């Protein structure tokens, strides 16, 4: 087997040194009832054979890049520069682990410090951690953190928070508290303020929300703060930071975001990278790894993992969270892509995204019966169609147009959004894509 260097002679010599006759003797502590398992699995295979198997599976999917493609709702198709994928495959980044020995992990640690700085700047917050698993779990961690900060256990979720995120929050927040979800009102400013009470630890609002609606967080921040609750702002499209007012500037106390759009491909939903930022005063309640600056024995600047007394390996059952790793390589991709873009590039990219979405919305709403539900939007908006969206997406897929994510895929029992279609456009969509979508939708309606 190509990955196993020991030869038969090596094994024999090593067994002799150990003083046993066979490897089986090394497994003598395994109960005899479990010692001779049989597995109905194939035998080993060479590279070419494995490539054939995996290639066959890959061809059973239609890559997003092969068709006019308009799905978003938490995962976005953007162009990732070639240098990003090259750099993250550097052996020293790809095949290292959590920087436990900082003297020989300065590369990873400095990258994390740069990442934390970029995330703090983008979100308009004071401090950011070294990443969490993804946007949805970052949101859940934010909710748990708000509980620790406020010592309250009632959570209020916007009805326009991505339903997968809402379910992820409920899974952990309902263990020790209650979760209230506001009614779903696509494209409308919800009245969340009246649902906040003095037991509410936090209000969770997504911006742009799952329907693509761009909302002003300031009124809800004020309402939350007036009742002693925190505002958690959720962002699933990181490119929007380039054009929309930062959540920190609108009064958010915690920002939980999905960083996939920068540096990371669609990958059918993972791995992605959770961004997590907050105010300095809440630092000691923040979950996840943190890289910090310090000096070495020669007085040179260096970086270490720090504030680990919050973490499970020290605090065990008293830790701020049970998280052990972050999403290192995806955070690296995020940081490299953001470094390549810079202030100018990210702003341009965001403008192009907004322009594409605006062009698409204008084209589609010219079709009779198609209504734009989201009055303001960034690169994603929601249409109300004259028929159930599930039928129309199906008919459009048959015409080679992947038209977007029907709201009923996410809101499984919400009849009021059965005709709603969430449509995203990015820099990867061309004039031809938009024209083809317009023509096809016109045909099926």
């Amino acid at each position, binding site marked *: *087997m190509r990955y196993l260097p020991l030869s038969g002679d090596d094994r024999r010599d090593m067994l002799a040194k150990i003083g046993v006759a066979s490897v089986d003797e090394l497994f003598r502590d395994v109960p005899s009832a479990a010692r001779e398992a049989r597995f109905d699995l194939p035998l080993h295979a060479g590279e070419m054979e494995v490539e054939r198997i995996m290639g066959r599976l890959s061809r059973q999917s239609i890559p997003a890049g092969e068709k006019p493609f308009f799905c978003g709702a938490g995962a976005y198709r953007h162009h990732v520069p070639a240098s990003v994928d090259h750099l993250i495959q550097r052996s020293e980044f790809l*095949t290292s682990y959590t920087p436990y020995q900082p003297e020989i992990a300065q590369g990873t640690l400095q990258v994390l410090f740069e990442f934390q700085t970029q995330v703090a700047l983008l979100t308009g917050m004071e401090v950011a951690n070294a990443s969490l698993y993804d946007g949805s779990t970052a949101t859940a961690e934010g909710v748990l953190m708000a509980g620790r900060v406020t010592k309250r256990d009632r959570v209020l979720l916007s009805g326009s928070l991505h339903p997968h995120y809402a379910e992820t929050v409920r899974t952990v927040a309902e263990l020790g508290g209650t979760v209230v979800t506001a009614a779903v009102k696509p494209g409308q400013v919800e009245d969340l303020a009246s649902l906040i009470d003095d037991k509410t630890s936090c209000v969770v609002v997504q911006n742009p929300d799952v329907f693509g609606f761009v909302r002003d967080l300031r009124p809800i921040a004020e309402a939350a703060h007036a009742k002693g609750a925190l505002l958690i702002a959720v962002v699933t499209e990181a490119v929007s930071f380039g054009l929309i007012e930062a959540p920190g500037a609108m009064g958010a106390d915690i920002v939980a975001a999905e960083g996939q759009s920068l540096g990371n491909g669609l990958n059918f939903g993972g791995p992605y990278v959770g961004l997590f930022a907050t105010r300095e005063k809440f630092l000691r309640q923040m979950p996840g790894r943190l890289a910090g600056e310090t000096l070495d024995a020669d007085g040179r600047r260096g970086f270490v993992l720090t504030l680990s007394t919050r973490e499970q390996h020290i605090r065990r059952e008293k830790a701020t969270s049970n998280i052990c790793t972050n999403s290192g390589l995806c955070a690296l991709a995020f940081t490299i892509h953001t470094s390549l873009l810079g202030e100018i590039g990210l702003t341009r990219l965001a403008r192009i995204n907004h322009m594409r979405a605006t062009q698409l919305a204008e084209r589609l709403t010219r079709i009779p019966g198609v209504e734009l539900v989201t009055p303001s939007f960034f690169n994603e908006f929601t249409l109300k169609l004259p028929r159930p969206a599930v039928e129309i997406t199906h008919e459009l897929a048959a015409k080679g147009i992947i038209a977007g994510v029907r709201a009923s895929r996410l809101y499984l029992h919400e009849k009021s959004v059965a005709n709603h279609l969430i449509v995203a456009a990015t820099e990867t969509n061309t004039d031809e894509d938009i024209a083809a979508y317009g023509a096809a939708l016109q045909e099926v309606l």
Partner: protein
Amino acid sequence: MLNNQGRPTTPGAASVSSAPPTLSGDRGLNHEEPLLFEVGRAEVTGVDLPDVTLKADRLGGLARKRPIGLVGLSEPETMRHYVRLSQRNASIDAMFYPLGSCTMKHNARLNEKMARLPGFSDAHPLAPQSTVQGALAVLSQTATWLKTLTGMPAVALSPKAGAHGELCGILAIRAAIRARGENRTRILVPESAHGTNPATAALCGFTVEDVRANAEGRVDVEALKAKLGPDVAGVMLTNPNTCGLFERDIIEIADAVHAAGGYFYCDGANFNAIVGRVRPGDLGIDAMHINLHKTFSTPHGGGGPGAGPVVFSERLAKFAPLPLLVQDAKGFRLIEDEEEAKALGYSPFGRMCAFHGQMGMFVRALTYMYSHGRDGLRQVADDAVLNANYILASLKDVMSAPFEGPCMHEALFDDAFLKDSGVTTLDIAKALIDEGYHPMTVYFPLVVHGAMLIEPTETESKETLDRFIAVMRGLARDAKAGDIERFQSAPRLAPRRRLDETAAARKPVLRWRAPDNAAEAAE
């Protein structure tokens, strides 16, 4: 594995390095690299994008008013910056990396190549399911391999890492107990467990109770039995355990837990020792997470992304979280609706995360499993255990092994051999850095003093092990001979010498600030 308890966190008495300075500050191939924010400029971008003007935006008056404060680099500058940073990292490709409990094995590049096939990497998680059948087939096949290898009937693929898998497993146990109309409040966790175990149980609202280890480094079965009762929800046990030993009474433990009405969670972090040989399902385990980044070689990536699928016994299978994957005449289909799942007889406890899990990691792990096959995987376990026992046998006369062998995939030593030498476990680790090795895990597990946990994995050659053994024997000899200065001042040859962790924690600097702002923030 990292643990701070009992280990120094300041550089201590290390003397200033004596090598002469250079004019540039760089040293040959060893370059100093400033922070991105010190070399990047606000007006530079490394991506060619048109500068479009928006005639009228649709942002509802919420356009950003102030600059973000980012800096950019051209593409060549980006390459140099990050290549130089990469060169300041240890990696499994470049060196022996025997970090116990982390399974730092070779990461085959075929896995990377397959993960980039467009049918997987360019598939959207919410695309119409008829268009992503290949991606769903990867989920299905990954599930089949993992179920077969563990002898368990069900698997939840969505947990994003080992600790997330633990959470998934304990939530399933909680759901099962509630479904029986019971309220059990305690979870038993051996003191040798990973810190994530008690943290997870506490997160789920359980009271965590330690179970002590016996003199052989295994769970004290009688102590565990004495703690079982009608309020115990379950036991979280790592097997092979964190001392690198197989829990030989595991079936007796499982039976006792089951007889008391509890569930048996196994931390599968150390599955590499038994993959292809022993099925956890045959040991009475009800739930176990599998770290795909350990046993199935998906890259550790400087600390993630991981993947932590959880296999379930028949008793817990129906409580697995959404989404579920089913296959019918039209192909594969995800069930994302709790009511639909219930109609099929499932009782999912909820959802672990958005979408369907770490797909990119499933492709890599599946590629790895196809490459090895059932014969190769068994050889993986055999060689991993052989390599660890070879290290144990070759070092136990000069170091101190607290427990009798044979060990499984990792060899544990304590610091008894350093007694009165003035040299600590940490010093040994730092001296190894100067010798060109990534140190072993130190100060974990907590059940022995000054622990050194060495996990060679199966992808190291005998020659590599022999060189490492020679170095370790030399270090043990020199430490006992009283060459304290050399140990305490190590590392001297790494990009940085010992770093002041105490200062870092006392006054945290967690981001770069522009010099003006930095002065402001310090006030």
